[in-house]
């Protein structure tokens, strides 16, 4: 009934897909962290005129499905005449989606940094922005690391959704193999195994980083 010997000829295709999945995870993950920190800072220290609407927009992101957001971005940008490759639409959509979640984490991490840290920096003559940059944000990053890492692992799995937009990552490449062999179970099973391994690798790496961060704190 099942015949896994159909897979080896497509090993290259699957491996390439897995590489793209990793690349998307890295790019979207980096965007979600950088943008997340910026969002946290603006909503904490920015003028109310900006921070309040941003909170509202954040709720729109948290209250609707990622797939719908990706569709809106993909077809909506096209409607506006902006033709972005599906790959970059996907990276942007995933990055912004998780930036909203990461912003919450960074915000509470920044707020949890001891007030004495700001005072010590100010007493040395650092300005507010410099103090944030050199002392508060680095410490908040250590605090936020486990949760942000967790989000990055969820992001890894959500990259599968980009196949729907036509991004040639792991799932789409598997579908190419399926349309040639009509063996969906074998291919999706292999895909699941690959995701599981990527997931394990990421958990291991983040666990190591978290232990290092814990040693410093």
């Amino acid at each position, binding site marked *: 009934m099942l015949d896994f010997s159909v897979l080896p000829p497509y090993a290259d295709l699957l491996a390439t897909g897995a590489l793209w999945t990793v690349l998307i995870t890295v790019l979207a993950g980096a965007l979600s962290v950088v943008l997340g920190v910026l969002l946290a800072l603006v909503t904490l220290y920015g003028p109310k005129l900006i921070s309040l609407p941003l909170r509202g927009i954040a709720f729109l992101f948290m209250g609707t499905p990622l797939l719908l957001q990706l569709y809106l971005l993909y077809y909506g940008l096209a409607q506006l005449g902006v033709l972005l490759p599906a790959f970059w639409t996907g990276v942007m959509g995933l990055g912004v989606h998780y930036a909203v979640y990461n912003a919450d984490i960074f915000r509470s991490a920044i707020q949890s940094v*001891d007030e*004495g*840290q700001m005072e*010590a920096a*100010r*007493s*040395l*003559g650092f300005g507010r922005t410099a103090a944030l940059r*050199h002392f508060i944000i680095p410490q908040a990053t250590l605090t936020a690391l486990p949760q942000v890492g967790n989000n990055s692992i969820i992001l890894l799995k959500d990259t599968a959704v980009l196949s729907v937009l036509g991004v040639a990552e792991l799932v789409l490449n598997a579908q190419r193999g399926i349309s040639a062999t009509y063996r969906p179970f074998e291919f999706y099973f292999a895909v699941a195994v690959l995701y599981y391994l990527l997931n394990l690798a990421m958990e291991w790496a983040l666990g190591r980083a978290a232990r290092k961060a814990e040693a*410093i704190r």
Partner: protein
Amino acid sequence: MTSAAPMIRLRGIRKSYGSHEVLKGIDLDVDQGRIVSIIGPSGSGKSTLLRSVNMLEEISHGEIWLDGVQVNSALTGRAFETHINRIRQQMGMVFQQFNLFPHLTALENVSIAPMKLKGKSKAEAEALARTLLEKVGLADKGGAYPARLSGGQKQRVAIARALAMQPKAMLFDEATSALDPELVDEVNLVMKQLAAEQMTMIIVTHEMRFAAEVSDHVLFMDGGVVVEQGPPEQVLKAPTQERTRGFLRKHLAQ
């Protein structure tokens, strides 16, 4: 009185939280190389006064001067920000809770301010930091993160961090209050060493013996006013005010 202006001059310092006045008009002159200790019960306003000197606390009225420059100048916005940062670079502060930067090693804690604020090279700042760590007896702890240091060691790193900006004066806010008794001496020793080097210092403390030993001048504060001040042998040994006597009696009984 010499012709030179005092290093630190406070005039008519007042501060209120809402309707509650915590500082009710304080004057103080500290000449270069002098050491002033401020004692008093908790809530007397002594820490608030110290924190006003570098404007970690904003005052409601009065004037603060450092080496002939007014600290609470009339500047506003960005200009004031630049001004106060420059002033603070010339005044070191040591906190009760150390407030070391936990994500930096001891050496980095000491070297970061000269590097980022004075534009010193990494090599230069680290050489300076090593000298200062050696001076506070922690030459071998440069690579350690604060979490790995004892309270006494942390506070000595904090002193080195403040000294790294080569300040004109040092402010100590209950520097030994959070320490286990057996760790107090190592910090006091460093402070005495600074005193011997003619560092201008204001020390808020509850250690009467240390205040008597090290200071040139002692202020006893209570309820936001200076109740009594003078040389330590007078204020601590032969106080003229009943409130001072009561405080010292209670304190020495403990």
